[in-house]
């Protein structure tokens, strides 16, 4: 039946052939996005005249619609095998790793949640029922009863003390929270991998001095160090990302160094040496790629950790402050209402728990898939 | 009643690639005080067989179904009550494993690990158990037993560790000792010493010995009888000398060709071509046929039965008719030979 069915709806042929997960996801994505653009037609049409966020949302919408269709058609022709959608965590993962990962329902659920949050973040302008800074109560002639309104059909997650819609703010706030996590981890990875690789490969004085510095940074309890940096230099996204990255890289450095040391002694690196490859080439082309498995695992777990740390900083009043704040800062702002208007803080908190949980699930899955020996410790 | 009697033992492992028939219908007996060798390449199922005797098959990684019957002095071990099985483990049947490096717990002293076994199986007080531990260490030829007992495994050489393992196995005064590749990891001179030790304690204590190895020469030095295992089945069995001198199965001949023995250095090495296939996809017909150099058409289609044979000594022994005791082989060639007078 395949050939014609595949042009009716993406995912449908997969469903018929019993590939419920892929088919279901594709179908759901496609129908869901279609319904979204139908329901928020006005907002979508407005987007081309909007800011960059609107543009991103529009491109995402069209891109995912087209992508799902193309995948569905191609996959059906090719007879399956590929991964549905774009998979953030699977970049650079060997095919074997992906096969193991795919079989792990918890890891797949985690990946699903992470991707869903990213998609929601990109589509925030269309998904959010209100503008994130719509403050009905403080408009001219506004109604104070709009403040701290309990969850209802209009405001699914209620409103906060400025009468802003909590759901909309969570959707927009994901931009900050998720970006801070990614940026900080990305930055610390860059520094950490580079220094770790150099220390592990070159050894000697360079190794000693890098590792002494690592030891020194790690001798500070992390949160205190963060607190000090952020408090003394005033919280801004840049400062917070830098501070988080600065307290994260020693962990990466230490780990990469260990991996490189272990790999250095293995046959293939000696073989490469014997073949006369340059040291730089051996390090970056042969050793590092082999050390990346555990690095990716730790980085994934690190994102969850960073989001938690950012929430902790926010709780102490040192979070990312912007017109659309991070979830952590929303949690902080809502904290004083926890006893009477729990929804203001509870939903951002829930979003944090969910995303961190999802990143940890993905990290666990990756660990099983890439490196069953790898272990991690929580270092907040 | 035999010391150990295995009937139609099957062990199937569920792996990601499918069901692996690691042990696929094995019969044999081992009498009191007898030394039997079990020989096969890795993947032939010999280790799985050894582990299933004491119910030590790895748990968790795929369900394992031991079927058939393993009787120890007439007592059925398959599906046995766990408490009784524990009494038998180490007490009546003991095992010595392949890797002396990893088979001893690195965080306890050698002495304490042996003493633990002594206390478990013998009604001795602490002091007596300690003395017994030292005695056992001396028995397996460890010099300066007192100091060695207080050592941790990593402080001992490989040979010493294997001696310690044997001492631990002897701690419960077992009547059957299963030694699984117990000398493989050791270098050749040590290997010879350990084999000598095994043989001597076996004869001295009158134990049954099931010696498992991939190396026919190792087994032949110690055992009265040999079983050749391939693809989870016995392909040939018989008294050691007969197997060595007149191997019936092409596989056995292959093994003999590929063995490298100390006293036989000049013989050229002729390895068996190919590798043992995965236990999940045995070929149809005779499992050995893809590697067999004397393959017949029939081999592709049907698997031969284990045929009782007349030994070189002429007569099938008294226990003939009982599988796994006499001279047997599993090959169509033998049938052809017989048909063709």
């Amino acid at each position, binding site marked *: 039946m395949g050939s014609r069915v595949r042009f009716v709806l993406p995912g449908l042929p997969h469903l018929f052939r019993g590939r419920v997960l892929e088919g279901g996801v594709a179908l759901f994505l496609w129908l869901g996005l279609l319904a979204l653009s139908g329901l928020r037609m006005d907002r979508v049409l407005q987007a081309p005249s909007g800011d960059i966020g609107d543009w991103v949302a529009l491109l995402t919408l069209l891109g995912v619609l087209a992508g799902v269709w193309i995948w569905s058609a191609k996959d059906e022709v090719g007879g399956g095998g590929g991964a549905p959608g774009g998979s953030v965590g699977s970049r650079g993962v060997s095919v074997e790793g992906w096969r193991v990962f795919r079989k792990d329902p918890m890891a797949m659920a985690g990946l699903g949640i992470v991707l869903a949050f990213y998609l929601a973040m990109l589509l925030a302008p269309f998904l959010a029922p209100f503008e994130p800074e719509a403050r009905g*109560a*403080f408009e001219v002639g506004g109604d*104070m009863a709009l403040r701290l309104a309990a969850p209802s059909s209009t405001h699914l997650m209620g409103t906060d003390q400025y009468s802003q819609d909590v759901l909309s703010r969570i959707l927009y706030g994901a931009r900050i929270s998720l970006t801070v996590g990614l940026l900080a981890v990305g930055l610390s990875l860059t520094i950490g991998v580079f220094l770790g690789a150099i220390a592990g490969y070159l050894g000697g004085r360079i190794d000693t001095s890098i590792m002494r510095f690592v030891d020194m940074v790690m001798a500070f309890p992390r949160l205190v160090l963060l607190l000090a940096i952020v408090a003394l230099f005033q919280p801004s996204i840049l400062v917070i990302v830098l501070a988080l990255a600065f307290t994260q890289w020693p962990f990466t450095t230490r780990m990469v160094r260990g991996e490189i040391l272990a790999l250095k002694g293995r046959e293939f690196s000696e073989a490469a040496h014997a073949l006369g490859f340059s040291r730089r080439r051996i390090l970056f082309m042969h050793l590092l790629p082999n050390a990346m498995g555990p690095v990716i695992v730790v980085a994934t777990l690190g994102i969850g950790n960073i989001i938690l740390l950012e929430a902790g900083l926010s709780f102490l*009043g040192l979070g990312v402050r912007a017109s659309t704040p991070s979830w952590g800062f929303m949690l902080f*702002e809502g904290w*004083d*209402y*926890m006893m009477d208007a729990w929804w203001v803080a509870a939903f951002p908190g829930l979003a944090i728990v969910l995303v961190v949980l999802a990143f940890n699930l993905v990290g666990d899955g990756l660990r099983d898939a890439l490196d069953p020996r790898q272990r991690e410790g929580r270092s907040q | 009643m035999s010391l150990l009697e295995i009937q139609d033992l099957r062990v199937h492992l569920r792996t990601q690639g499918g069901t692996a028939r690691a042990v696929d219908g094995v019969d044999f007996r081992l009498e009191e005080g007898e030394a039997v060798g079990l020989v096969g390449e890795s993947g032939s199922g010999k280790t799985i067989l050894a582990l299933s005797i004491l119910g030590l098959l790895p748990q968790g990684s795929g369900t394992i179904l031991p079927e058939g019957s393993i009787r120890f002095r007439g007592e059925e071990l398959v599906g046995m009550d766990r408490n009784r099985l524990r009494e038998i483990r180490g007490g009546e049947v003991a095992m010595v494993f392949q890797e002396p490096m990893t088979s001893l717990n690195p965080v306890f002293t050698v002495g304490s690990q042996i003493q633990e076994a002594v206390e478990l199986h013998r009604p001795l007080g602490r002091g007596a158990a300690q003395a017994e531990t030292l005695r056992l260490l001396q028995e397996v030829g460890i010099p300066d037993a007192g100091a060695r007992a207080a050592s941790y495994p990593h402080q001992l050489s490989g040979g010493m560790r294997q001696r310690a393992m044997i001492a631990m196995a002897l701690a419960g005064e077992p009547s059957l000792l299963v030694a699984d590749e117990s000398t493989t990891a050791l270098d050749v001179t040590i290997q010879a010493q350990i084999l000598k030790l095994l043989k001597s304690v076996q004869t001295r204590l009158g134990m049954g010995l099931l010696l498992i190895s991939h190396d026919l020469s190792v087994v032949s030095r110690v055992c009265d009888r040999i079983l050749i295992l391939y693809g989870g089945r016995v392909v040939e069995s018989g008294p050691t000398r007969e197997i060595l001198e007149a191997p019936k199965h092409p596989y056995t001949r292959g093994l003999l060709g590929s063995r490298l023995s100390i006293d036989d250095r000049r013989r050229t090495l002729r390895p068996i071509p190919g590798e043992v296939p995965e236990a999940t996809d045995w070929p149809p017909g005779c499992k050995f046929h893809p590697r067999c150099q004397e393959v017949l058409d029939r081999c592709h289609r049907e698997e031969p039965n284990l045929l009782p044979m007349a030994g070189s000594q002429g007569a099938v022994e008294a226990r003939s008719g009982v599988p796994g005791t006499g001279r047997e082989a599993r090959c169509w060639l033998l049938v052809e030979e017989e048909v063709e007078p």
Partner: protein
Amino acid sequence: MKRSLSFLLFFALSTTACVGEPGDGSGVGLQDAFCGPAMARVDSFMATFAGQEPVGERYGGTVVLGSLGDVSGMGPGDAISVEAAQHQQFLNFMTLIEFDENLEPAPYLATSWEISEDQTELTFHLRGDVYWHDGERTTAQDVAFTYLTVINPESEYANPGYFQAYLPGEEGVEVVDPLTVKFHFNPHADILETWRNLSILPHHLLGDVPTAELARHPFGGVCPVGNGPFRFSSRSPGDSWTWEANPAFPEALGGRPYLDRYVYRVIPSHTTLMAELLAGGVDVYIQMLPNHAVMAREEPSLRVPTFPYPSIFFVAWNSRVPELADARVRRALTLGINRPQLIEGIQRGEAILLNSGIPPVHWAYDPTLEDSLRYDPDQARTLLDTAGWVDRDGDGFRENGDGAPLQIDLVYNQNQERQQVAEVMRVQLQDIGVDLRPRVLERMTYSGVITSVEREFDGALVTFETGFRIDDRDLFHSEVRDGFYAFSGTVDPELDRYLDTLQLIPDWEEALPVWQAYQLRLLEVQPYTYLYSALRRNGVNRRLQGVAMDTRGDLASIRHWWTDPQSRRTP
């Protein structure tokens, strides 16, 4: 491994037992040459009252008051904090006079006082039965010592302005006899408010301490020996202060207070505070958040005394920056802020609109001023237009002739109320084309920014506790344009004139018209946008009785607080 862990646990428990022991003041290892003997004398003096406890069911019990921040100390320099000042005034020390419920002066340490006809002399007659907690009698010597100490800038006393009209140094004070002390000054306003505020210090303990060292002397933070109804018992820094009833407190003033013990606890989170109040862990939660007050009012076990308080909340506009140099712009900003809505939305209606720095509880408060700068965005827009600020590039914000945008940065330090006000102001001013940029600063940075000479800010959100004597000289007088409090830096001769005059008129009737003129002028100059004076809301457990919290302070009636014996906490 477990052995080692339990070893660790044991180690920690035993360390706590010998170091963290509260109760005797010596626990935290604070004993030194000064405090050790001082506290020992207090203990032995208090011991002489053993067995003489008054009988009555109201006597006994512990009351716990919870607050967000620690009380820095009992020294004269600490009086800048409202909490510290209250504990000095009502608990630990005595003031010469106190105010009754009608804010009329009443005898306290002084039984009586006279002000000379020409308003230049004030004579206090002291009670003879007031003893320092270590047994020394409180005399005129102590009062004179206190005066001489606080007028010395080295003492870092928070309100030197009180004594501006006093004759300098020793000329200002005269010990007539051990129980009589006389002050000399030029005529000025609200003379007695000074003496309601100033806690008297023990001369016999601090007389030898160089004034410059007083601010960092252990007396303030470790062993404040006072003469008030409660005597200092112990302090766990950052966590709590404990006072006990002073059995030697004069009978005529009610004698020993009912409560055995009063504990001030620092609980750094409003939510935890509220939970403690609900759970009964604290009896009083001072300065509740508005939403917690709403909750507490519905709770049968709690009540929420809500009362006007001499505090003012305002935006100080820095007139030194070009954007804000023009009074029309400042007036437009005030017109563009919907203050009643702020009160309604953020304070749940529990605040009084302000148009000047005179809080509603002050006698010179003029309610008719309320209407004059009412929210009127249209008028605000017109004013900005005439001042030359027009949206020239169509981005929604105004620019001047040079194209410089009307961009105002507003600094504040983190606090729920200020943050909300800043955010709401931003939205409302956006409506009239002003680009307000709220900038939250860390506490110390904030106070540095607004008080240092550089004044690197455009607008600042500030809360002041004014007390009952208003003196705006250091805020607006052109003579002190670089002074600590001269946030705005406006220069206006008319204001200067009023400011100079007001402080010299002791008579209220006579002063009132000047006050009115002053406030009207203030509206013109508009150095500040006055927002509101919030009512003070304290959550109080109903088991605590005799509590009259009012304008004078949360603790004004602490001598009369009592608890029902059945509802007392166990220790």
